[in-house]
């Protein structure tokens, strides 16, 4: 994967300064706090971060899926090929979600309607967006099931979700999401609820479909192994912000933010000699009812400085297309980022050389 060609691929989706809040009885939760990113045609952007950091909310707000109230998009823009699409509809009223952007979810077991056949659920998208007749759409649904490598697709299309296994349900979800040939597929933790062998099959399937259809994928995950295997570009999210963005190689081999370094060090390896303990990041993420005034990672950062307490770090370019929000990269800072690489950076399993 070449970092330079990534940048020449056309920008499909351009999100700028997205801010999302939730009103709760306890106060306002600042779930997403000014997130910007670009998605390039045919490429995979992975958004990684721990639970509750705002990954899902980011993509769901772009799709117009966050329940409102209590959720609301406070600021920012999301443009698909230059057209504003917040709420899943373009400015001229065209419905984008389901047709130009498809989405799959974490738990395939509960993400399908239990009282509707798989075939009908796939066909439905085609009927609505393409205006196909029911029988026409159903025929195509069978083809889609075949494309996602489900055996006996015509028999399977007549079955209900409870007759499917978890992996097959996720395949059906994928068939449903790509039915209208979307240019972007959002995969919100697509393999978290599946066992490892199935995980691997689903990821292969996603990559093959991406290659065949030149489809961009926004992959949301907390599994760095999955990121290493799938991603062209990576955004590391923490407490509603992107702390570091760059190509997968940038993120893994020249991590520029202490949080990214911490995540890398926390990754278990399966090398024999490394009988070392897991290295967790101490502490827990900040309370998003009242986000800290300075760097969100301040309280847990082993390199925290006085400046980090009250001044939010701006984005520093640390390479072509590689950005990080960390004061360590300020020109006046005496400490250098090389100090961060305290953990032996092991070669990543699953990552192509």
């Amino acid at each position, binding site marked *: 994967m070449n970092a330079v060609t990534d940048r020449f691929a056309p920008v499909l989706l351009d999100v700028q300064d997205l801010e999302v809040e939730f009103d709760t009885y306890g106060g306002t939760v600042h779930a997403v706090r000014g997130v910007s990113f670009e998605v390039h045609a045919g490429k995979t952007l992975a958004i990684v971060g721990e639970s509750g950091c705002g990954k899902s909310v980011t993509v769901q707000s772009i799709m*117009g899926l966050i329940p409102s109230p209590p959720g609301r998009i406070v600021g920012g823009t999301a443009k698909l090929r230059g057209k504003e699409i917040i709420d899943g509809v373009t400015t001229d009223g065209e419905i984008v979600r389901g047709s130009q952007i498809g*989405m799959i979810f974490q738990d395939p077991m509960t993400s399908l309607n239990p*009282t509707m056949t798989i075939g009908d659920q796939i066909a*439905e998208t085609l009927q*609505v967006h393409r205006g196909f007749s029911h029988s026409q759409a159903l025929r195509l649904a069978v083809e889609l099931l075949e494309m996602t490598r489900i055996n006996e697709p015509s028999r399977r299309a007549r079955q*209900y979700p409870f007759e499917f296994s978890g992996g097959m349900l996720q395949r059906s979800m994928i068939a449903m999401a790509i039915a209208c040939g979307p240019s972007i597929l959002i995969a919100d933790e697509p393999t978290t609820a599946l066992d490892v062998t199935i995980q691997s099959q689903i990821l292969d399937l996603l990559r093959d479909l991406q290659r065949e259809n030149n489809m961009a994928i926004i992959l949301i995950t907390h599994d760095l192994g999955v990121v290493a295997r799938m991603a062209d570009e990576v955004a590391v999210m923490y407490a509603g912000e992107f702390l570091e963005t760059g190509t997968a190689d940038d993120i893994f081999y020249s991590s520029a933010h202490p949080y990214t370094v911490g995540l890398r060090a926390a990754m278990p390896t399966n090398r024999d000699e490394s009988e070392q303990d897991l290295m967790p990041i101490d502490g827990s993420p900040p309370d998003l009812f009242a986000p800290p005034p300075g760097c969100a990672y301040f309280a847990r950062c082993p390199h925290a400085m006085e400046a980090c307490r009250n001044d939010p770090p701006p984005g520093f370019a640390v390479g072509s297309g590689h950005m990080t929000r960390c004061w360590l990269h300020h020109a006046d800072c005496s400490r250098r980022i090389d100090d961060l690489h305290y953990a032996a950076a092991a070669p990543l399993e699953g990552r192509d050389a």
Partner: protein
Amino acid sequence: MIRYTVIRLIQGVITVWFIATATFFAMHAVPGDPLMNDKAISEEIRRNLEAQYGLDKPLPVQYVIYIGNMLKGDFGISFAQENRSVNDIIREHFPVSAILGILAITFAGLGGILFGALTARYRNKMPDIVIMFLVILGISVPSFVFAALGQFALVNLNAFFGTSILPVAGWGTLSHMIAPSLVLGLGTMAFLTRLMRSSMLEIVSSDYVRTARSKGLPTTRIFLRHELRNAILPVVTVLGPSIAAITTGGFVVELVFAIPGLGRYFVQAVQQLDYTVIMGTTVFYGAFLVFMVIVVDLLYGLIDPRVRLE
């Protein structure tokens, strides 16, 4: 499916036999007998009558005779109403009760689903608050109160317009049926509304509705195909017991609205200790309810593929 149906039917027969046995002995345990209501009769006449009706035999023998006759489809002759067989009474009056019950359950079911969906849609807004207030009223006020209030309202309404908009009581035409079936279905409707509301609220925030939204489907399609059908399932489950509630509630409503249904005879029979009529109507109602519950259970399989049986 066929195996399941047969098993359910056999279980149903056992249930009905149990109902018959329990009623028989409970009824005989009540002090007095059907002949007590008549004017003073001499010992001899009394003995003759007892012999004629078989009341002189020991209770277990009476029981065996009764069950034997019942199996032949003969419920015997009424004590209180001369020369009228219980079979005739049921044949003549049950259709009236059945029509009333069907109308009431239709009204309760449709109303419950509609109002339940509506309150869930407008959760914590005005329509929800108003309907939920009425629902609490509907659940807590017994049907005979609504029956009387309904009649009172109808009398005033008819007087106001100077013509009979809806008849206050009686039976015969469709307009006679409206008021009593509304009154009869009201409590059940209120109950179903609550059930539908909570079921709908749960489903609206379910994963598969989110999936449906992510597919860019229009709101009406999501509502009909994804929310409504799944939300109805718990309502269908309680339809069986609801039929029981409506049928028993029907006894009172029939009395208040002067409807010649079976319920009236049932109540009368209990007051007069009319053994054969009590037994006949109880067993018949019991069998009817058991059958309806089986039908509802089979229907459930049509709506929810997960409980469809091989």
